[in-house]
């Protein structure tokens, strides 16, 4: 099964092996015909209306604003509904550096997102600390505090790159089992178990 979108031929995608791995995992687990078809329908809807959380700490956030404006126009893909409340958003684009003081806040925002939820680490700082690698106050990659689905390099990434990253995310959504949680929810649970917060039961 080739996971692709209308606008882009399959061979133009990068990281196809990863998605193929997910497809294999999905097929290995087997599916009921009815549940499987229902999954497909739901995922089709979900992957075409991915709502971002407006969460920007620095430069990348401004490119995210450009992405929303007329020239790059993310409304073409159904992502334009940027929500300010995590309760209404599907994914969190960590646009910018996360520092130690911000880490609990970022984690709380993630916890507040409604399931199913996704994270894109956008920009060099969120991926690995970027130019602030030697800093005493920067978290070296947002992956240390929340599970990340797509890593997007760049400083800041161009809006085109942001479009590509969200398209990758929607490809990932397509090969997920909405009922039963194959492919990603278990990994997310594992991550949260290894990064517990006192007083909060993941």
């Amino acid at each position, binding site marked *: 099964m080739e996971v692709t979108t209308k606008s882009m031929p399959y061979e133009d995608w990068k990281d196809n092996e990863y998605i193929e791995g997910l497809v294999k995992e999905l097929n290995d687990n087997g599916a009921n015909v009815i549940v499987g078809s229902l999954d497909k329908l739901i995922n089709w809807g979900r992957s075409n209306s991915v709502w971002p959380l*407006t*969460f*920007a*700490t*620095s*430069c990348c*956030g*401004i*490119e995210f*604003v*450009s992405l*929303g*404006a*007329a*020239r790059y126009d993310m409304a073409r893909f159904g992502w334009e509904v940027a929500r*300010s409340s995590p309760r209404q958003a599907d994914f969190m684009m960590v646009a*910018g*550096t996360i*520092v*130690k*003081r*911000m*880490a*609990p*806040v970022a*984690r*709380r*925002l993630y916890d507040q997102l409604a399931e199913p939820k996704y994270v894109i680490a956008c920009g060099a700082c969120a991926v690995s600390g970027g*130019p*602030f690698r*030697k*800093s*005493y*106050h*920067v*978290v070296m990659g947002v992956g*240390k*505090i929340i599970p990340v689905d797509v890593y997007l390099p760049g*400083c*800041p990434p*161009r809006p085109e790159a942001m479009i590509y990253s969200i398209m990758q995310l929607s490809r990932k959504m397509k090969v997920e089992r909405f009922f039963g949680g194959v492919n990603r929810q278990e990994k997310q649970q594992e991550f949260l178990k290894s*990064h517990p*917060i*006192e007083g909060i039961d993941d």
Partner: protein
Amino acid sequence: MADIQERIATLYPDATFEAADITVVNIPDAQWHSLAKTLRDDPELRFDYLMTIVGMDWADSLGCIYYLNSTSTGAHISVKVTTNDRIKPMLHSVADLWAIAGIYEREVYDFFGIVFINNPDMRRLFLSIDWKGFPLRKDYDADENLNPVTTESERQSDFTDTWVEDENGKVVKKEVRVFGPEDFVVNIGPQHPATHGVLRFRTAVDGETIKKIDLYCGYIHRGVEKIAEQLTYPQTLHFMDRLDYFSAHPYHHCLCMTIEQAAGIEISRRAQVIRVLMDELSRIASHCLFIGTYCMDLGATTMLFYTLRVREQILDIMEKTCGARMTFNYECIGGVMQDLDPNFVADVHKLLEVLPANIKEYNKLFTGNVITENRLIGVGNLSREDAISWGVTGPSGRASGWACDIRKTDPYSIYSELDFEEVVRTEGDSMARFKVRMDEMVQSARIIEQLIDNIPEGEICVKVPKVLKLPKGHWCRFVEGCRGTFGTFIESDGTTSPYRLKIIPPCLPAAAVVDHITRGFKIADLITIGGSMDYIVPDIDR
């Protein structure tokens, strides 16, 4: 300058003077507060604007350098106050003389652990309440285990410490409440769409009326100043792009100028013109985005699409020359990195053609709108005296009637040869701050018009030694960023990397003054007032 020095010497025989780019007065801490009062109030001196406080660690002593400026005479002076006590360093506060000093002193306390006697609020400013150590000290222990990454919410306290001197000269520590026990406190931020980044206000309200705002910074504090101490001078440059990402060019310009001044490098005329062109282009792009996001804060979402149209056009011009849309890293020590794109002149002409029509359109759509007028006129008034005392520079300061444009008061580069007006308004409300930015775009376009057809030939970058070492000493330069007076301070010990690099951001005073100007207004006005100050949070936090 000589008569200022003479005057201080007669009043304070203990004071010694050091020659630098801005004269340094050395004064013992015991006399510092009295000298500060003289400097501010003496009719011949009138140093009413505190530009910054630079905390310093000279290994054997800790201390501060205060940079002062007189808004009436334009004179500059700096004062150095030191203490040899490393265990419990204490200096006298000047928070009662300049309003912004309270915040600057908190910053020094946060980074160096110097306690300011009589400062009413001695909490950390950027780092969390339980942070161990003072990071900008030279003996700071950077062990990750001391201050680990945590996902637990940080401890909150409604109390702050203050050290006061009693009649016998003994310093005692006191605990003071930030908010009263009966205050109703609303938390706004750090994740809030209208704080323009990750700023946090704890707001005490009485019904809907704001009583007091407590500012929390540091949610994007990246420790640039400390990292820079481990890097060579050319390596420190790229951080300037990532502070106020809209003023990337002016900020680069500033640090390059400081280093060039220290190293005695003369840059070519062509490079100067290119730098000024880029500064002014980024000013237009920055104000465009300000207008768009500000209108969006007020609910006029579509304005963003109109203003970003011009911004994208400018970014295209810059991208062709610099190779990036936001983090350009274009200016380098000795000039600029690359020559201009062959189409640069034609592209800029195209921009200048469409710009007046666009500004007219913005005015038509938004400025005269009745909702806009109701929400902006007479809201968030800042008087000229307060603007100076709080150090609010840039368009926000000029909206209060303070002519503080560094391009006019202390012309750098080729600004003295250019013909443009400084936009000053006197109302001091949100509307004035908005209109100043609108008019500044026109003035920037005027500067570009004068230069674009006269870019001289010549080399773009002079020869600079591969391994750049600065002589011993310190330098401080200021430029007009898109949001106000931006400065860099470098102290060099003669090696290839700075001993101390201090970044003087214009946005910290702009955020600090929000408490002062929102009092008595409704909580909904906090959004319009905060938006009109146009602060960029990474610039505040650094």
